[in-house]
């Protein structure tokens, strides 16, 4: 009878995870305390998913670490309480945590590629994990290991036991890590950005796997993500974290449709996946004038299949042309060839000027087309101030005397809206968004007609992303620029591009106007890419 009494009913169900007034802080090197989580109240029941959403630095990963007792040595829970499956875990020591890890709390890490010991075979690790948690007899562990691998969708599981981590792809590794996380039959699964290091089409399958395991095992899932649309699609409840505070919390639908907080509404308004029509008025008659013409571009690295295989595309004046593909699709190689940074076969012409197939070390046509790269911190000399960086191209190309150059530099910096007070700073003294503005200004200094944007926002937080996109779209309008945008983010393509070319394994899969392509993709691969965009509330 007692058993029946203890069994939780829907009404009195105990929470698997419960935090009350959780405050977490770090001690800096100079002994100063910094509180990064300021009073978080979270509650999560078995079989439910709670998404913790926030940008980098919001404190979401700190909470994730604290819930598994994995705060770094200088981090401490200052006040509040953590209860895991009924156990007070607030002040556990390492031994106490070890009893909870694996058996009560399972974790799925962010970057599967570096999350397994490269020297240990997958099978050894699974068997050791089972020995630690499952209490199986030795002989049964191997069998169970195979079962687990099958359960997470790894084929040839028997054979894969002998594999080393480097022999598996990122998606397969993440599956193995999920298998490891559930090996000890935990009650709570903490997934910290479980797909951010994976290709878009793989992301979806991993999230589907987590959901199906959740249903089978009755897991409570805490999903940590920066991606609002993804949170809205995958979670029952959402908690939005901003500067260490939970600013909005509730059922996913309510948070999405009626955000209680200004910051949350900004987030939703700016996420490309949730606001596809932000620049909706952009459909204009395209000019017939071709600015970038790529014909049968081929690029080989060593022997084997070429990295880029007979790629052709055309950018016309004033349009935003998106080149889309996953990692390894060859899109970056195409960009480098168009920018004159690598040798190629085939032909590339910009504004009617043919590029040399084996480009010289110094670009002879900097005024035709400029590249804005993915990582502005790397693209700016750490020793140059903002002004000096922007003046450099003018100095090289005889842009008048010193005063004229300064005037031009100030003008482009005004154009990208970089405050005057930041212009004597060096790159590492700027934020990511500010750096990207400087990189854009530098590219604009010589007044090129075409900008090649290589993942221009992938290193930035959502809100900043939106600001940079706003800036770029405004510039295009004012300066009548044409853009070739390289990206893996289809939601961004849908938001800003006029036409799109889809690459897979170095070949063009499909190409056409964005509207048409999104409405009716002709190819299976394109369909998969489009399906991978989180839909928000499904």
């Amino acid at each position, binding site marked *: 009878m007692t058993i029946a009494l203890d069994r939780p009913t829907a009404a009195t169900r105990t929470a698997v995870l419960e935090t009350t007034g959780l405050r977490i802080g770090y001690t800096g090197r*100079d002994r100063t305390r910094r509180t990064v989580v300021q009073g978080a109240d979270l509650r999560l029941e078995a079989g439910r998913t709670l998404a913790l959403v926030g940008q980098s630095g919001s404190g979401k990963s700190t909470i994730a670490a604290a819930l598994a007792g994995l705060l770094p040595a200088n981090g401490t829970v200052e006040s509040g309480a953590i209860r895991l499956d009924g156990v007070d875990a607030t002040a556990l020591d390492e031994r106490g945590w070890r009893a909870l890890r694996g058996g009560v709390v399972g974790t799925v890490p962010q970057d599967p590629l570096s999350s397994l010991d490269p020297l240990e075979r997958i099978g050894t690790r699974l068997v050791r994990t089972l020995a630690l948690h499952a209490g199986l007899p030795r002989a049964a562990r191997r069998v169970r290991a195979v079962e687990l691998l099958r359960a997470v969708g790894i084929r040839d599981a028997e054979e894969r036991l002998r594999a080393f981590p480097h022999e598996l792809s990122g998606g397969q590794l993440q599956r193995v890590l999920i298998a490891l996380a559930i090996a000890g039959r935990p009650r709570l699964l903490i997934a910290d950005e479980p797909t951010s290091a994976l290709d878009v089409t793989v992301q979806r399958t991993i999230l589907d796997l987590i959901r199906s395991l959740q249903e089978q095992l009755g897991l409570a899932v805490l999903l940590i993500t920066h991606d609002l649309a993804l949170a809205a699609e995958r979670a029952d409840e959402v908690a939005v974290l901003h500067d260490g505070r939970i600013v909005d919390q509730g059922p996913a639908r309510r948070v999405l449709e009626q955000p209680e907080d200004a910051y949350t509404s900004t987030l939703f308004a700016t996420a490309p996946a949730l606001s596809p029509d932000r620049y909706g008025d952009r459909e204009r008659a395209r000019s017939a004038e071709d600015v970038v013409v790529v014909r049968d571009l081929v690029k080989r690295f060593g022997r084997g299949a070429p990295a880029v295989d007979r790629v052709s595309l055309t950018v016309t004046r004033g349009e935003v042309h998106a080149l889309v593909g996953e990692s390894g699709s060859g899109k970056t190689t195409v960009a480098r060839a168009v920018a004159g*940074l690598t040798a190629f076969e085939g032909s590339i012409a910009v504004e009617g000027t043919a590029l040399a197939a084996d480009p010289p070390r*110094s*670009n002879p046509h900097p005024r035709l087309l*400029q*590249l804005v*790269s993915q990582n502005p911190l790397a693209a700016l000399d750490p020793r140059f101030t903002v002004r000096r960086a922007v003046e*450099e191209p003018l100095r*090289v190309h005889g842009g008048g005397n010193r005063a004229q150059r300064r005037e031009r530099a100030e003008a482009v910096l005004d154009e990208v809206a970089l405050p005057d007070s930041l212009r004597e700073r*060096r790159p590492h003294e700027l934020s990511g968004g500010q750096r990207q503005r400087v990189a854009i200004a530098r590219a604009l200094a010589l007044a090129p007609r075409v900008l090649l944007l290589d993942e221009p926002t992938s290193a930035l937080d959502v809100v900043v992303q939106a600001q940079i996109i706003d800036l770029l779209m405004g510039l295009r309008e004012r300066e009548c620029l044409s853009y070739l945008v390289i990206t893996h983010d289809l939601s961004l393509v849908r938001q800003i591009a006029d036409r799109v070319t889809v690459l897979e394994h170095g070949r063009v899969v499909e190409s056409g106007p964005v509207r048409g392509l999104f409405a009716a993709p002709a190819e299976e691969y394109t369909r998969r890419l489009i399906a991978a965009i989180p839909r928000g509330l499904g």
Partner: protein
Amino acid sequence: MSAVLHRIRSAPRTRPRLGVVDVLALGVLALVALAIVAPGVLAPADPLEAVPGGTLQPPGSAGLFGTDYLGRDVLSRIVHGTGRTVLASSIAVAIGLGAGSALGLIAAYFGGWADAVVSRVVDVLLSIPGLLLSMVVVVALGFGSTNAAIAVGVASIAAFARLMRSEVLRVRELGFVESARHLGVRPWAVLLRHVLPNSAAPVLSMTALQFGNAILWIAALSFLGYGAPPPLPEWGLLVSEGRGYLSSSPWLTLLPGLVIVATVVAISRVSALIAETRRTRP
């Protein structure tokens, strides 16, 4: 020199927070500098003057560091030996840095054949341990403190060449160098404006480190009797001279030895400081 200092100042850096060890290190180097510039201030006596009555006095009673087998004041000999030791190390580092970075730069900048040739030469030089290589050069040139310095310099060429080459190659692949090329900046301007300034920090740090190494190697050559001839006070020679009295008067060996250790530790600390504060972010 002032140009170099200026560039250091304008470099991106996290301002170092000097710890106790750093302050101590700088203090040791200040003493070394003083011993070079004005040995008379630190040395209580004439380093060459023998006092027949006061031989092998332990530290304390007769002078801070005691006296040697001729009654000469050990502290004074160490202080007066500083200039010679540091000069020899400077020669060695100048040779290593000059020849090494020129070779490394040629290899990295021209690539192809030049790189292949330089890389093989560097391989060969690295396949002979430094001490042995400097002995080879000493055999060829003859004994003496300048020859020992040259020998040590030759032995450190490979390390500088390899570092310079790899630094230039590393920096040349960084995004901002590509960005400059893309903006049409000429190759030599890219090298002077972007590549060299950004590879300076590791080379500078290595120079300091090699300076310490040079002191050690030159001391080793002197200890073996291939360097400065007696009675000139050179640090390694001082340790060597004390060897015969090791069991009865160990301070003759230990004190000059500890001065070497303190100096080299201080230099390596400063080298680490340079590396820490001026690291180019990738």
